[in-house]
């Protein structure tokens, strides 16, 4: 087997690590801080090898004090550095959300444009597997709610590398929502060369189709593609949009798709109430009303704290069969 016949693949974990390493090589003001990022090589091994290459000045283990080190990161960004702050999971970012929103996101505005905050907050978001309610929450809508932040969420290795590099270079605070279950998954490798980045704010059509639009991000894109395969067997042609960026939203791509398919289902692992799907529904309703043949449907986690028991957990988190059913419902084809 040669490289011509088989495209090279890498894991999302490697893509994220490569993104950080490349940007740290290019810009001496970029550094990584967080719990277990250095000596432990990353709680999920995302920062593997970075301490060896860049040393303890630029790969900093912090105490388990999220509010504190998030604030230190913000201060360092005000002071002219470009920190990458890793949360072991975004569940712990709730301890630090004041620094992310009140300090990082709002200060540019409150200072009349003087105080930019070039910082990336990154880490795994959403549910992993059997870790219970406190360690399984999706924070997409929490952060996407706030002006002054950019919020991105990659699906595959290309997204992970291209978007993380863009986030590190961005002069604004960027919340970068990864997914633990995707870390080990292999995908087509991103184009080589350290200048490859993906623009923040642009969605990607993973699969074109004409009957219904599925809009998802992160791990839900994979389930959407599975569901699309399944539905194709029944003659239903599904378009799958990978949002990539949750703020800003690529409304142009979304609207163009809905104008074509007239039917839309949104997907997320977060709670239904005031979620990303709610925003998508509202935007589509406001702008694409005359092109809708059915109400936009949302596939989300159930409106409960995530249970531990395996059977209940399966019921609470949406997967492809639920998407297949939602597509049939939205097409009046139940």
């Amino acid at each position, binding site marked *: 087997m040669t490289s011509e016949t088989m495209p090279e693949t890498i894991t999302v974990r490697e893509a994220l690590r490569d993104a950080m390493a490349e940007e740290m090589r290019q810009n001496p003001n970029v550094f990584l801080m967080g719990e277990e990022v250095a000596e432990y090589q990353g709680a999920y091994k995302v920062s593997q090898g970075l301490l060896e290459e860049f040393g303890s000045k630029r790969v900093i283990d912090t105490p388990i004090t999220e509010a504190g080190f998030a604030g230190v990161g913000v201060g360092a960004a005000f002071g002219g550095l470009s920190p990458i702050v890793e949360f072991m999971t975004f569940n712990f970012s709730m301890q630090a959300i004041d620094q992310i929103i009140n300090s990082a996101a709002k200060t540019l*505005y409150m200072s009349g444009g003087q*105080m930019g905050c070039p910082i990336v907050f990154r880490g795994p978001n959403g549910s992993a597997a059997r870790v219970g309610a406190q360690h399984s929450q999706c924070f997409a809508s929490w952060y996407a709610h706030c002006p002054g932040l950019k919020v991105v969420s990659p699906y595959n290795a290309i997204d992970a590398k291209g978007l993380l590099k863009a986030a590190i270079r961005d002069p604004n605070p960027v919340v970068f929502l990864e997914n633990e279950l995707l870390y080990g998954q292999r995908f087509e490798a991103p184009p080589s060369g350290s200048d490859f980045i993906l623009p923040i704010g642009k969605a990607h059509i993973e699969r074109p189709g004409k009957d219904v639009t599925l809009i998802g991000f992160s791990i839900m894109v994979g389930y959407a593609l599975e569901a699309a395969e399944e539905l194709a067997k029944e003659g239903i042609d599904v378009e799958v949009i990978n949002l990539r960026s949750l703020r800003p939203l690529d409304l142009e791509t979304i609207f163009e798709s809905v104008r074509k398919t007239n039917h839309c289902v949104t997907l997320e692992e977060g709670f239904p109430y005031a979620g990303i799907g709610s925003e998508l529904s509202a935007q589509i309703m406001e702008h694409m009303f005359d092109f809708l043949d059915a109400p936009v449907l949302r596939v989300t986690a159930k409106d409960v704290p995530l249970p531990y028991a395996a059977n209940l957990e399966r019921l609470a988190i949406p997967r492809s069969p639920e998407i297949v059913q939602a597509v049939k419902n939205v097409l009046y084809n139940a």
Partner: protein
Amino acid sequence: MSPKNLKNSPHSPSLENLYKAYESMYLIRRFEEKAGQLYGMGLIAGFCHLYIGQEAVVVGLQQAVTESDSIITSYRDHGHMLACDMSPGGVMAELTGRSGGYSKGKGGSMHMFSREKKFYGGHGIVGAQVPIGTGLALAHQYKNDNGICFTYMGDGGSNQGQMFEAFNMAALWKLPVLYIIENNLYAMGTSLDRHAAVTDLSTRGSAQGIPGKSVDGMDYLAMREAALEAASYVRSGKGPFILEAKTYRYRGHSMSDPAKYRSKEEVEDVKSHHDPLSILEAEILRQGGDKDHLESITKDVKKKIDEAVEFAKESPEPSEGELFTDILV
């Protein structure tokens, strides 16, 4: 407490320095009096926390600030900005919500910044500026620019969890940060002995091994001396230091505070016996200073503040187009 023991200090300031400090402190005093007046006239709204009574703290500390240092504080920030040499008109115009304000009218009393003067705010969330100041110190260390960060907080903020988190990292990484706890005895309306289990706030960093010192925050000379010592400790690379400045605010917590939690007599006693401007004036005269010169200073300051007020009234409101600017870079 008393400046007596400073007579022999190698850092003894010149009379010129004292005049300058007096001017600086009176500028703050006069500015805040006018701000209070404008608030009453409805020209300033929302939250407005006055610094009257605490002037010696920031002016004393400022004596230790060099060009590479950075400064950050909480929401009682007007005095710090003026001490950093930010223009009174720009600060006042921000209070009146005008385009000539430091944040184009979009920040208000608690949210003003000047990158030029290395003043990093002005933060409205109690204690949030402590990790940020610690991060600014991290940037000084990272860039090896000889700067240190002056991170101010109040006695109220000194109970915040994130302050202890920041202390821990600062001590652990030996960050060049000088923490100043301006202890004005009241966290909003709750007196020190009702909100802090240990009322000696200079020991706030004892668990992290951060040395601290209490100083009379009403006495400019004492403040100056302590600031120079503490800053030199921090600048030497030994890590953070804590200065507790024992001070007092004459006005309520904010403009809407009737200050029912303390007696009039208490306030009057401080005003007549511990007023920082009176103490400094006495020291100037004791050193042979000129009363007429002090009067000409106050006259000039009054004029300067009147001009600031005029500017803040005349400056137009921000254009409506400003609503959607400065959200992202």
